[in-house]
């Protein structure tokens, strides 16, 4: 990877943008790596969590926003909990995901994850609550390769009455829909 810094390119300051959106002072991070050390999913990531912060620090926008790491973050917040410099790393990941989606940079390799979020929110948008079966349905349609994954669990859930065929519509579902509209 190559990062080029010239007087011109300094004008778009990625770090500042992230800081403004998140209220998180990424400059504080001194790259000790404790976040990475405690991250349960780090082993699956393309960049370590501390590297993602590093990208933000030095303005490597593309590297940060196209990383798989931001999607693989499970939001367990272990990193934030233990960070010696009180950098809210997990919360930073939320902001980066948001920016990544906005800019259409979400890494296609983690499409499963983004699709799941999409399906989940679509369900909420439609019904006000999650209708697990329909949400699942949408997700599996969009990610057909995962269809067979839960072949055993699914029917068992049904048989235990754990998946309702009826969507849980709430009365204020229109209000919820408006929330979605206003929060675009």
């Amino acid at each position, binding site marked *: 990877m*190559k*990062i080029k*810094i010239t*007087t011109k390119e*300094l004008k778009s300051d990625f770090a500042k943008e992230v800081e403004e959106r998140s209220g998180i002072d990424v400059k504080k991070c*001194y790259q000790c790596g404790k976040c990475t050390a405690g991250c349960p999913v780090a082993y699956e990531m393309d960049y370590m969590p501390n*590297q993602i912060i*590093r990208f933000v620090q*030095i303005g490597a926008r593309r590297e940060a926003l196209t990383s798989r790491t931001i999607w693989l973050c499970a939001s367990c917040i272990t990193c934030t909990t233990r960070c010696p410099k009180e950098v809210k790393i997990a919360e930073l990941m939320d902001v980066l995901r948001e920016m990544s989606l906005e800019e259409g940079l979400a890494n296609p390799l983690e499409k499963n994850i983004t699709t799941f979020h999409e399906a989940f929110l679509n369900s909420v948008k439609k019904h006000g609550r999650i209708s697990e079966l329909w949400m699942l349905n949408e997700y599996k349609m969009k990610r057909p390769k995962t269809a067979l994954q839960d072949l055993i669990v699914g029917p068992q859930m049904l048989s235990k009455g754990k998946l309702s065929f009826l969507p849980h519509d709430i009365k204020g579902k229109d209000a919820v829909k408006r929330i979605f509209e206003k929060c675009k």
Partner: protein
Amino acid sequence: MGNKKIGVFVCHCGTNISATVDVEKVAEETKKNNPGVSYTTTYKYMCSDPGQKLLRDKIKEEGLDGVVVAACSPKMHEHTFRNAAIKTGLNPYHVEISNIREQCSWVHPEIPVGTEKSTDLVRMMTEKVRKDKSLNAIKVPVTKRALVIGGGIAGIQAALDIADGGHEVIMVEREASIGGHMAQLSETFPTLDCSQCIMTPKMVEAAQNDNITMHTWSEIESVDGYIGNFTVKIRKKARSVDLDLCTGCSSCWQVCPCSKIKSEFDMGLGNRTAIYIPFPQAIPSKPVIDRENCILFKDARKKNIKPNDSKVCRKCIDACPIAPVKAIDYNQEDEIIEVKVGAIIVATGYKELEDGLYGEYGGGKYEDVITGLQFERLASASGPTEGVIKRPSDGKEPEIVVFIQCVGSRDPAKGCSYCSKTCCMYTAKHTMLYKHKVHHGHAFVFYIDIRCAGKGYEEFSQRAIEEEGATYLRGRVSRVYKKGEKLVVLGADTLTGSVVEIEADMVVLASAMKAQDDAMEIAQKLSIQYDKDKFLSEIHPKLKPVESSSAGIFLAGTCQGPKDIPETVAQAGAAASKVLALLSSDELEREPVVARVDRQLPPVFSTCIGCFYCQKVCPYSAIESEDIKARDGSVIKTVARVNEGLCQGCGLCAATCRSKSIELDGFNDEQIYAEINAVEFN
């Protein structure tokens, strides 16, 4: 002493010795096989209070007149056990240490091997003890005056502390003014207070202190003598200005036509005249003529005439208002003065690495690649730009400044393996000074590690990053090259694994602190040691950090190794307190390990035949000749004699003497013979 009663005490040192040496067996074998050994024991920690008590008790109870302690290196506790012996009335030089820890138990893991070697080592020492003689400490008088070499912050602090303690101090500074590097700095970390604001008062204080005699523009010519009694020759270089007459009125340097000489004080970023004071706050604030560059002196050299006979330019002397005798004397010559002092503090400071070493950063080729000290001058309100950050090439305000750390530090390939210790902090400071002066500017710092150990230091460097917004990139810069008006810096950020290329306006190198070019010369003049990097060596890195390898000579400041101002001041204070302790007594006691020329009954008088090889090899001129005279005053024989005060006990004379008429107390012939004789391999 016929048959000594020798006691052998074998230390377990916890398990440091006993884990790999069967200490009981060592004691047992020693008792069994050494007829003179009347008592042996082992103890967990001989150096502990109970251990020492055991030693004292047994010396008394058993009537021991010789002791071997088999324990750690004599460098650790020889002193301890000899002192314990003194308390019992036993002369301490009947106590010897057998080193069975550093040179046995710690290096030989197998018990039988370690035990056998220990037994041998103890036997050798036992035999030496058998031949040990009582020695008495030598008393030498103390000259109650100190010499401080170097007039930087270390020298000034040390001189002030000693002067405040009531003793005379002679300070020697080779530059025209005291102040050293600290006077060049703009602000100091971690408080960002102005360096000159805290330095100048100290300089004035030193100048005004009645106990301090200052010799600027002077160097040490030679040092002779020993602790308490040094004789020092000082070369007062020809200043061409009479310090007594000169009032520092500035008339002379204002008229000097040679105004384009690069100022050393401004690190070449500003100019000075040929007759000049290095900086406005100089002390003494009286000028010196730079004879290399002055056109009058150039002319005199060319014509091979006395300078005063040259008529090329006499503007300064004409401008000098002092009458009838002018304060300027072109014909002034170097003067050598001799002073006697009891103690010496070496505070000769450091030198900033010259940028020629790094060809990859331009090797001094690019005007806008500057060193740390140059940046200090740029940022200093009294500097060539009056504190405005302008790049040297075109005076433009730099928008992107790249700071490169570890230039000449941690770089074994360039012959500098150590860490210069201050650069992390001063670079952080530089980024702050820069950002304070150029608000929209961007500071990038390439570092390997950020080492900011010190009170408030970590917070300071984090502040540079968090509050001042300096961008730190982890990696060394590989190359700096010019591209148009810009300097392209090729670096890396290993934290992200990326190559970083920055088009900078100015590059600041955090150049290493190096030993002074002539550090070895001063070390040789003082007979003190220096390390691989030519920094002067302390005698013990932990327990004797300000003592040099020569008694009575102490170290302060960066001549001993890179350090920052607080550390330097602390060390200077420590050195001063050592000097004060030394000067507080009228006479000194020193180890009686000195050489001795034998004396015999007439008609031999001495087996010395007076060939004086000893005198020729003695590094301390401690050998004198003595005429042995008959009653009528006629000389029967001329023989050698040792001056105890000068002898340092190296034994060179003894080994050179063919007839073995000269021996070293504590390591005399019989003692060494006994030790070798006891080697007895089986």
